[in-house]
Structures are given as structure tokens and as C-alpha cells.
């Protein structure tokens, strides 16, 4: 099985054009990368595409009505919409600190959702 795909590496702003050949369900060949991160990206993007999710959640702060959050690691793409739906229904009590965990180990995927801004009470 040989499935050559051109994807653009987004590990850094250089944006290497990678040629990724899918060899099996677990193996790929990556060409055109300038660093190891490019190879890792090419593999992950082909086998298990993930994205860091950022969004905002409603707070009861008068000054900062919405607090920004992110996943601390990239999340498998197929779970993004489910996570967003949950985030949009939350009401958060302040104070909260940058780095504080909002959702621990989402769906057992080893991904936490953390606040990215400190909101005083």
C-alpha cells in the first residue's frame, strides 16, 4: 500500500512541504522535512491528526466576562466538537488562575483543558 500525500508542516513558521507515504496503519515515510519535529508531524497528521483547541468559557466576573481556555496537548480531531459543546455550556466562578485545570483527562484521552488567563475575583 502506497499513498503519497503532500502536507504542509505546521510545527514552526517555516512550513516545510512534506511528502508523506502511508506504508501501513502504523507506519509512514516522511520526506521533505528539515527537522525531527517535521517527521513526527507528518506521521501524526497522517495516522492520528490532532489539534490544540482554544475557546472561551463564560465567567461571573464583571470585568472579564469570558475566560480563555486551551487543551494542554493537541486533541484528536474527532473529539473537538464534543469538547467545544461542553465548554460552551459552562458557567465558571472566578477567581481563577492561568494554568488551573478546568477539565481533567477529557474522555480518558490524557488531555486537560486549562485556563490561559488569570481572572481575579
Amino acid at each position, binding site marked *: 500500500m502506497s499513498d503519497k500525500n503532500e502536507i*504542509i508542516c*505546521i510545527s514552526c513558521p517555516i*512550513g516545510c512541504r512534506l511528502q508523506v507515504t502511508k506504508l501501513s496503519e502504523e507506519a509512514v515515510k516522511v520526506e521533505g522535512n528539515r527537522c525531527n519535529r517535521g517527521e513526527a508531524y507528518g506521521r501524526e497528521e497522517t495516522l492520528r491528526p490532532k489539534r490544540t483547541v*482554544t475557546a472561551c468559557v463564560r465567567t461571573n466576573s464583571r470585568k472579564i*466576562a*469570558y475566560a*480563555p481556555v*486551551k487543551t494542554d496537548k493537541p486533541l484528536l480531531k474527532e473529539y*473537538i466538537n464534543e469538547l467545544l459543546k461542553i465548554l460552551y455550556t459552562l458557567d465558571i466562578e472566578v477567581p481563577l488562575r492561568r494554568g488551573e485545570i478546568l477539565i481533567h483527562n477529557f474522555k480518558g484521552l490524557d488531555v486537560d483543558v486549562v485556563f*490561559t488567563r488569570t481572572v481575579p475575583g
Partner: protein
Amino acid sequence: MKTNVYDAVVIGGGAAGMACACEMDSSGLKVAIVEREETLGGILLQCIHNGFGLHRFKEELTGPEYAERYIEKVENTSLDVFLSTTVVNIANEGEGYCVTGYSGSEGVLLFKTEAVVLAMGCRERNRGNIGIPGTRPSGILTAGLAQRLINMDGLVPGRRIVIAGSGDIGLIMARRLTWTGCEVLGVVEILPYASGITRNIVQCLKDFDIPLYLSHIISRIEGKDRVESVQVTPLQDGKPDISGSFPLECDTILLSVGLIPENELSRKASVKINHETGGAYVDAHYMTSQKGIFACGNVLHVHDIVDFVSEESVTCGRYVHQYVKHSLLDAAQYNVTPGANVKYVIPNSFIREAGRKFYLRSLIVKNDAELKVMLGEQTIIKKKLRHVQPSEMISFVLDNEAFPASLPIGDRMALEVSIH
């Protein structure tokens, strides 16, 4: 009226202002930051997406995280921070400057200072700047404004969105809006290539199959009270080809058509503005045409990566310190001019000193390009560049070794930077 006396006053408390001020504080200057918003952080606070800090912190941060790292740094210094204070004037007083600020709670504030750092950032170009014909309904806003509404106020500007221009903020908003439940019908770009960085094309458009119409324009906006549709027209040899026009039914148009350094204050202070960047001309020490007024960050030239803003601003702060301490290197400066395929180079002059860094923007898209720095007929630097495009800033360092020692000092020759 309260008068405060400082070595340097920094106008703007965003990424540039904070980095520059922290640098000056650490070198012992008495410095104030004057910020018109209620908090420090500037535009970073509304940029909740990740991708900041890869160069500076070697990790991927969101805008608010990057901002808070600097805000905490500022809090641990002896910097004076004046929030909710708008600077309205910079007056030359011979030996220094008098900066006038206005604050709702304090009234008029005067700052007597030896040096002024311009760090006001930039603002967005709008419909008036690009002149889209049609009606004037509601639902037309800049991408950055939409970003602020969604991310800080929780307000969604519409449901069916067309984005004009492929600048980074517009691309980021395409994803944000899609993740908010809106439908983004397309991004319309007048140029044959995207204005935003590649990473955003991939993660914000390709991920959601949002069409990118290159070499297309929005030729008309329709709608009485609210936007109802736009006409999208392809360009053929640079001219609109009406026969290829098609409508997109939408209720909202976001404009992501570039940023303009915010230099009203600078102009008032007679700072000479470079038309290629929209920012001030600066010498090798980031000093503008007005002695003692410096500039850094997006008010100087629009950056695509905040890490470079911080880096440039620290450099600027170092020179301001030297200026205040009367220890600026007093040597001949060579003009630095953009040559073939280069839009601009910052700073605009060079001084013979180790490790001088330059930032430039390409006018072309090319793989395996070459950067060339010439002094007259002599090649000073040749550098291979794997890929250049206008949206990605290029930098290079000019070392003493590269610079011929035999040149007569005081020779006002220009360094020419080109891309081939």
C-alpha cells in the same frame, strides 16, 4: 496637574511596550508605561489561539499566556504603569520631551522625560481603505473587532460569514467562527497567494474545507439593513472578469485586509514616516528622525510573530538606555535600502558593531531563494532561504567580520538588501 519625571516613557503596554520597558528597568532607568486600556497586554489578550512564544519561550503559548508572562515580569520591576491613560501629545522641550496623557480618574498627567518609546501597535484597515462598492448595511466589521467581540465579550457577530482578505487574523477567525457554530463560506483574496502564514492556511481553512478564492475580489455588497450577499469576482490579468462573478449569500463580512501602524502621535511629534512600512524611519539604534524618540513593535512595522516584537523591543530598550546614559556608539551609519524583491528592511541604517539584526519582508513567493546584502559592488552576505513569501518576515544578522574593514569611516554608502 501632576508632573512625573522619568528617563524614558513608553507609550503602549502591549508586547512591544512591556518588553522594551522591562529591558530599560533592568538596566536601571526610571521608566513609565502609559497604556490606554484598563490592563496591560494589548492585542495579545484577545488572541486566545496558540502558537505564540515558540522562539522566545521555546514552547507554544496562547496570546493571554504570552501577555501574562510579561505582565508578571512588569509587576516584579520598579516600572510605573499608568493604565486607562491616553497619550494625546508629545512635545519637544529642547533637552527632552513632555508627554501629555489623559486619564478619566486622574485628569491630565504630564510626563517629563529624556526619551520616548513609541509602542502603540497598529490598527486594522477597513472598508474605506479598500473601497468595496455596494450598500452600507450592518454586518461589516474588521476581523480583529470580531475577534474581540467573540473572545472577550462573548458576542457572535453573525451566522453566515464571508471573509475579505487572507490576513492572519481573518484566518484565525475563520476557525474560531466555525468552532462557534457559524458557517464560513469562503475567504476572498485579491492577491494570487495568501497573505497569512502557512500554518494558518492549513489549520484554519483546510481543516474545515473553507474555500480560499485567490485572485478574487468582493466586487459588491448587497443588503438593505443587514448584509444579504456579496458578489465575488475573479481577476483576469489584474482586471475583474465580471462574467466569472458569483454570489455568496451571507449575513456578515469580516475584513482582514492588513494593518497600519498607529502613528498619529508620531506624526504630531514630527517623526518622519516610511511609506513602505507605515512606521517611522529608524536609525541603527531604533531612534526615529526625532532625537530621543524611539520606536519598536507593530508601530514600527507590522510583524507576523510576537516573538520578534519582543526581541526587537528589547534591542530598542538597550539603545534607549545607552542614549539616556550618553553612551550610544557614535560612529558612521550606513543607510540600509531595500533592493530587488524586498519591500522594506528595518532598521533603516547600519552601524559597524557586532551582531546587528535586520528584519525584512519579501515581495515575492519563492523556494530556494537567496538573500544578498551588497555594499556598492561588494557582496557582504549571501544567505540561502528555503522559502520566502511576503507574509513571513525574514531576519539576518550582520557581523563585523562580514563587513570590510578597509572602508573609509564616514563613507555614506548604502547597504542594499535583495532577494533573488
